[in-house]
C-alpha cells in the first residue's frame, strides 16, 4: 500500500505527535488518546458483534445459553446495538477527533487531563451500561436503552467532549474548513439530541407526543451525531490521501447546510401510520426525500474528487473503505427516500427490511469509514511505519464487504416476504417458517463478518507488537535478488 508508506515519510515528524503546538510545549496531538480510543473501539466492535451473533442464534432455535437470565437473548440485543453506537462508533470517533481537530486548528484540545478523564469516564459508562442492560434495567428508548441512572452521567460526558474540542476551534480566526462545520455542529447536536431523547419521553411527555420525540431521537442519533462526524472525517481524510482538494466547495456548502436543515425534520418517519398528526408524518416524508437530494450532491462531489485517481481504490485500503461506504451511503439514502413513503411503509414496517437497512447504515457506511480511518491512522499512532500484513487487509475488506452485502439483501428480501405474508393474513407460524432460511443466512453472513473483524484485530495486534511483516521480508528478498541480478 504505497500511499501509507509515502504519507508516513512526509508526515514522519508527526508519527509520535512530536510537532509542537502554537499554544506552548504541549504536543499537538495526544497520540496515546487516539490509540486507546481506537483499541477500545475495536474491543467493543468485537463484543457487540459477538452479542449480535449470539442473539441471532435464537432465531434458529439453537440458542446455547438457555434459561440463564444474564444471557437472555433480548438483553444481548441491547448490548449489540448500544455497544455498536456508544462503544465502537463513539470510541473510534473520539480517537479520530483527537487526531483531526488539533491538526486542523493547529491547537491541542482544551485540556490533556480532560481528554484522559473523558476516556476513562466513557469506558466506565460503557461497562456500566452493559452490566445494567444485562441485569434487565433498560430504558424503553431504541438506541438509548442505557439505564436511566446512567443517562445524566453520559450527557455530562458528551458536554465535556464538546467543550474539549470546541475550545481549539473557537481560537481559529476566519472561515472554517468543511470538516470543522460538521464537527462543530455535531458537538452541539449530540448534546441536544441525547438530552431530548433520554429525558423528555421518560420524565416530561407521554403517549403519542413522546413517540414523536422518540422518533426524533432514533433518527437524530444517526443523523446528527454519527453522520456529521462521519462526513467531517471524509472531508478531512479523502483529500489528504488522494492529495488533492475536494472537487467543489459550493457543493460542500450545499451538502452541509442541506443536511443541517432537513435532517432534524425527519424523525417522525419512523412512526408512520401512528396517531401522530398526519400532516407531520407527510412533513417528515418530504424532508426525508429532500435529504436524499442533498446526499446526492455530496456523493457526486466526492466521486468527482476521486475522478482521475480511480487507481487509489485498488492501491489504498482506506480510500477503498471510504468509497465503498459512500456507495452504501447512497444506497441507504436512496432506499430511505422510498421506504419512508406511506406506500412502502404498508409492507415493510416492522419487518426485517428495516433491520437490513439499519445494518447497512451503521456498519456498511459508518463502520466502513471508521475501519478505513483506523487502517490509515493506526500505524501512525502505534509508532510503526507499516502494517504487519497488507494481504490481511485485503481479506478483511473483501470478507466484510461481501458478507455485508449478503446480509443486506437477505434481510431486505426477508422483509418483503414477511410484509406481503402479513398483508395476505397468512398464519403467524407460516411467516416464521418462511423467515427461517433468511435468518440462517443472516447468522452465516454475520459469522463471516465477525471473522473478518478478528482478522483485522489480529493485524492490529501484530502491528502493535512490532512483529516484522511478511511483505517487508519479501520486499527485502526481492531487492536482494535484483541487486544480485543487476551486474549481469
Amino acid at each position, binding site marked *: 500500500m504505497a500511499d501509507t508508506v509515502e504519507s508516513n515519510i512526509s508526515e514522519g515528524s508527526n508519527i509520535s505527535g512530536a510537532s509542537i503546538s502554537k499554544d506552548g510545549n504541549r504536543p499537538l496531538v495526544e497520540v496515546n488518546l487516539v490509540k486507546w480510543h481506537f483499541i477500545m473501539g475495536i474491543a467493543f466492535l468485537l463484543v457487540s458483534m459477538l452479542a449480535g451473533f449470539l442473539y441471532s442464534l435464537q432465531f434458529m432455535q439453537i440458542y446455547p445459553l438457555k434459561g440463564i437470565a444474564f444471557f437472555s437473548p433480548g438483553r444481548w440485543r441491547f448490548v449489540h446495538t448500544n455497544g455498536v453506537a456508544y462503544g465502537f462508533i463513539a470510541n473510534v470517533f473520539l480517537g479520530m477527533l483527537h487526531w483531526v481537530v488539533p491538526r486542523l486548528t493547529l491547537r491541542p484540545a482544551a485540556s490533556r487531563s480532560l481528554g484522559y478523564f473523558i476516556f476513562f469516564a466513557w469506558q466506565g459508562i460503557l461497562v456500566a451500561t452493559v452490566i445494567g442492560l444485562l441485569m434487565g434495567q433498560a430504558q424503553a428508548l431504541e438506541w438509548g436503552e442505557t439505564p436511566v441512572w446512567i443517562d445524566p452521567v453520559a450527557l455530562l460526558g458528551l458536554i465535556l467532549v464538546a467543550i474539549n474540542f470546541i475550545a481549539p476551534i473557537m481560537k481559529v480566526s476566519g472561515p472554517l474548513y468543511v470538516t470543522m*462545520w460538521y464537527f462543530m455542529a455535531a458537538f452541539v447536536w449530540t448534546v441536544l439530541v441525547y438530552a431530548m431523547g433520554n429525558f423528555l419521553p421518560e420524565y416530561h411527555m407521554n403517549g403519542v407526543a413522546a413517540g414523536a420525540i422518540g422518533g426524533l431521537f432514533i433518527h437524530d442519533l444517526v443523523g446528527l451525531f454519527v453522520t456529521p462526524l462521519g462526513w467531517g472525517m471524509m472531508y478531512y481524510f479523502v483529500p489528504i490521501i488522494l492529495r488533492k482538494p475536494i472537487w467543489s466547495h459550493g457543493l460542500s456548502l450545499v451538502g452541509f447546510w442541506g443536511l443541517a436543515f432537513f435532517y432534524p425534520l425527519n424523525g417522525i418517519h419512523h412512526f408512520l401510520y401512528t396517531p401522530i398528526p398526519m400532516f407531520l408524518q407527510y412533513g417528515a416524508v418530504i424532508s426525508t426525500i429532500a435529504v436524499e437530494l442533498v446526499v446526492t450532491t455530496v456523493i457526486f462531489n466526492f466521486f468527482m474528487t476521486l475522478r482521475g485517481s480511480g487507481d487509489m481504490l485498488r492501491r489504498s485500503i482506506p480510500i477503498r473503505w471510504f468509497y465503498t461506504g459512500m456507495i452504501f451511503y447512497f444506497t441507504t439514502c436512496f432506499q430511505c427516500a422510498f421506504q419512508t413513503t406511506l406506500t412502502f411503509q404498508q409492507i415493510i414496517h416492522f419487518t426485517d427490511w428495516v433491520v437490513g437497512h439499519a445494518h447497512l447504515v451503521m456498519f456498511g457506511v459508518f463502520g466502513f469509514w471508521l475501519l478505513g480511518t483506523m487502517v490509515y491512522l493506526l500505524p501512525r499512532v502505534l509508532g510503526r511505519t507499516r502494517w504487519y500484513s497488507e494481504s490481511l487487509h485485503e481479506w478483511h475488506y473483501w470478507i466484510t464487504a461481501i458478507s455485508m452485502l449478503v446480509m443486506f439483501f437477505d434481510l431486505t428480501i426477508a422483509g418483503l416476504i414477511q410484509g406481503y405474508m402479513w398483508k395476505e393474513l397468512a398464519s403467524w407460524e407460516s411467516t416464521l417458517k418462511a423467515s427461517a432460511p433468511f435468518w440462517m443466512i443472516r447468522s452465516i453472513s454475520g459469522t463471516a463478518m465477525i471473522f473478518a473483524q478478528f482478522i483485522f484485530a489480529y493485524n492490529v495486534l501484530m502491528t502493535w507488537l512490532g512483529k516484522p511483516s511478511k511483505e517487508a521480508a519479501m520486499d527485502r528478498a526481492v531487492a536482494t535478488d535484483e541487486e544480485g541480478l543487476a551486474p549481469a
Partner: protein
Amino acid sequence: MLESKSGVFFVAGLAFFGIAFIVMGALPYTIYRGLPEESVADMIQEHGIVPEFVELAEKFPTQFKEYYGECNVESFEAALRRGHRIYIGEACWHCHSQFVRPVSKESSRWGPVAHAREYNNELQRPVLFGTRRVGPDLSREAGRRSNDWHIAHFYKPTNVVPSSVMPEYSWFFDDDGYPNRDGMAIIMYVQWLGSWIDEYPYYLGEGPKGPGSAENIDMSGVE
C-alpha cells in the same frame, strides 16, 4: 455566515435543531396536551381488574399470597407495574409491537386500529409502539389466550408454538415450575394489554361484534 464559527454554532447547531424540535416535537405535544396522562390506578378504576388476575389468585393461592397478598386493586397495580418493567428490561418490545396500523388488513388480524388515547397512560412511558414484529402485536392480546397458555408458553414457547423463536424464560418460574412474582407480573401485563377496549378479545378475522370491532371497520380505501 455559511463558513463561520458563529454561523455553524448558532444557525445550524441551535436554530435548525430548534426549528425541527418545535415543529416535530413541541407541536404534537401541544396538540395532545388536552389528553391528560392516566395513572395505572386511574386505568384500573375505569376498566376494572382483568378476570385473569382473579384466576391466577385462585389457581396458585399460596404463591399468589406470598408475592402479591390479597387479590385487589393495589396488588393488580403492583403486578402491572412490575410486568411493565420486565417487558422493557427483557426487550419484549424489540420483537412485539403495541400498535395496530390502519393498513395491510391489520385490523382483521389484531383488532381495532390504535388510538391516541390508548398511549396516554403511565405504562406507555416511553411509548411502546415497538420497532419490529418477530412475534405478534400485543396491544390486543388481553383475554385472547388463557393464563395456562401463557404459563406454558413463557416456560418453553416451542412446546406451544413449534416454530416460535421466542426465548425460554425459565427465570419467571420457581423451583416447582409455578410462575413466580415476575412470571405472574408479565402474564398480567400481557393479559391487560387491550383490556380497556369495550369488547375484547379479538381473534384473527372474528373479533366481537359491536362498534369499534374488527368487522365494523371500513376497510375500503386503506388497502
